[in-house]
């Protein structure tokens, strides 16, 4: 049994529901995560799947501590980071990276690609690590001088990956990173990620609403519905013998490109 990099237990998160706030007094709480527990072993690739409103994005942002959970516990490498303040998190930030869904909004439009990758490293644009990161994601070095809007969607997403791996992190969270891409760039980005996971020994959590992109990459999948884990199983088992009706529904809804498979 591999040692766990992340141990999440009883994770809860609720936010004030401003839509139903009475004129006076506090707003009622809206529960987004309702007690979630799972481990991510070092070197594992975990898929997190769910529909909109399932809490998968919130869960991801809690893992990388962009938001603070209201209850439960997140242990990263044995250290409790659940309520760590920003100042003390800063030392850990380098080890926990994230790739965002929308590469247009996650890359600062007025900085060059080189600066975007170099800035978190506190390095210059010409730093060897920038060139190396670009090389690892299959982009030419000359791209360092370009601006994000001069790239295609797939290339932008590669820049997002380069920025994350340049930090040599222990853990990367990928939040819906292929949902805005064409199938061909989708395949390229997923293949790239698969290869980087092997080469760099990354631990990866891959959030998606689409089970079909998860099947290749992930060893294990957790299925979220309404802020709870409804199924947590090895990928093969999940696809072959889903135990929860919601998982079955998700699988059945995928349009397999084959007209002979009835829907």
């Amino acid at each position: 049994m591999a040692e766990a990099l992340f141990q999440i237990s009883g994770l809860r998160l609720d936010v004030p529901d401003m839509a139903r706030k009475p004129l006076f007094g506090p707003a009622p709480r809206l529960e987004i995560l309702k007690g979630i527990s799972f481990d991510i072993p070092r070197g594992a690739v975990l898929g997190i799947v769910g529909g909109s409103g399932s809490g998968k994005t919130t869960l991801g942002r809690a893992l990388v501590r962009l938001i603070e959970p209201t209850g439960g516990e997140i242990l990263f490498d044995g250290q409790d980071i659940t309520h760590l303040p920003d100042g003390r998190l800063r030392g850990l930030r380098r080890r926990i990276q994230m790739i965002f869904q929308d590469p247009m909004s996650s890359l600062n439009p007025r900085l060059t690609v080189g600066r975007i990758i170099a800035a978190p490293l506190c390095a210059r644009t010409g730093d060897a690590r920038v060139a190396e990161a670009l090389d690892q994601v299959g982009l030419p070095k000359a791209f360092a001088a370009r601006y994000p809007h001069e790239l295609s969607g797939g290339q932008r997403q590669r820049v997002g990956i380069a920025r994350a791996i340049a930090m040599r992190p222990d853990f990367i969270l990928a939040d819906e990173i292929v949902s805005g891409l064409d199938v061909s760039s989708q395949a390229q980005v997923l293949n790239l990620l698969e290869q980087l996971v092997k080469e760099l020994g990354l631990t990866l959590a891959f959030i998606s609403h689409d089970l079909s992109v998860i099947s290749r990459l992930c060893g294990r999948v957790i299925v979220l519905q309404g802020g709870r884990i409804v199924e947590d199983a090895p990928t093969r088992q999940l696809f072959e013998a889903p135990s929860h009706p919601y998982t079955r529904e998700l699988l059945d809804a995928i349009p397999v490109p084959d007209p002979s498979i009835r829907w």
Partner: protein
Amino acid sequence: MLDGRGAIKRRAGARLWLSALWLGFVALCAIFAPLISPQDPLAQDLMLGRLPPAWMAGSEPGFWLGTDSLGRDVLSRMIFGARVALTVALLAGVVTCLVGSALGLVAGFYRGWADRIVGRLVDIWMAFPPVLFAILLIAVLGTGLTSVIIAIVVIDWTRFCRVVRAETLNQSQMDYVQSARIAGFTRLRTLLSEILPNVLPTMVALLTLEMGIAVIVEAILSFVNLSISTDAPTWGGMIAEGRLAIHQAWWVLVFPLVALFLTVLSFAQLGDGLRERFDPVLR
């Protein structure tokens, strides 16, 4: 092959260069005013009152754009008036921009109590009628160039504050700000190195607009005799004086008005032109 983008860019370029050319010309006039003005702008000579411009009958050599009712040379007064106009535009514009933008950035990025205080302040400020406010301020501070600049800053910082706050708020929602947190940037560094470059184009556009507005406000205050001393040549003051003799000597009113118009227009065009040329997203 047809390249439309090139054509648009050329037009934008022409706009930028024309406005820069005019403003550069005005700036040169302002800097070298004592050297190039043909007459003493303050010298009165009632014998030379209301002389028409050089190309009209009855003009005197050396008074290219005619004289006003006190016999002062219109061209020379305009050249010296450029000094006041540009000083006000630059100082009032820049200080207003710095004060308003700083407050807007802080309010929009840090939110919380900073945002609440700045927000209330802006609300209260906006409830004052600006012209009355300006007149009141000048009455308290006394007339003079410094008072005019202070009045403009005190009144107009809210314009920057509101727009910059909204834009900062907007940019703060973007994932690249989250990404900066993931990278372990401090809040201040995120604000300066991630958000500021994205708010800067808005600030520059507002700044050039504000410079135009400052010139107008100065002219209005001169017009109602609340700017600097009545004797000193300012475009607004000249327009006010020219108004009294519009039928006998239209040139006293028209030439400073044209200068004012072109300058204000150029500032606005300069803002758009700079944005198109130097903003990497639009380039």
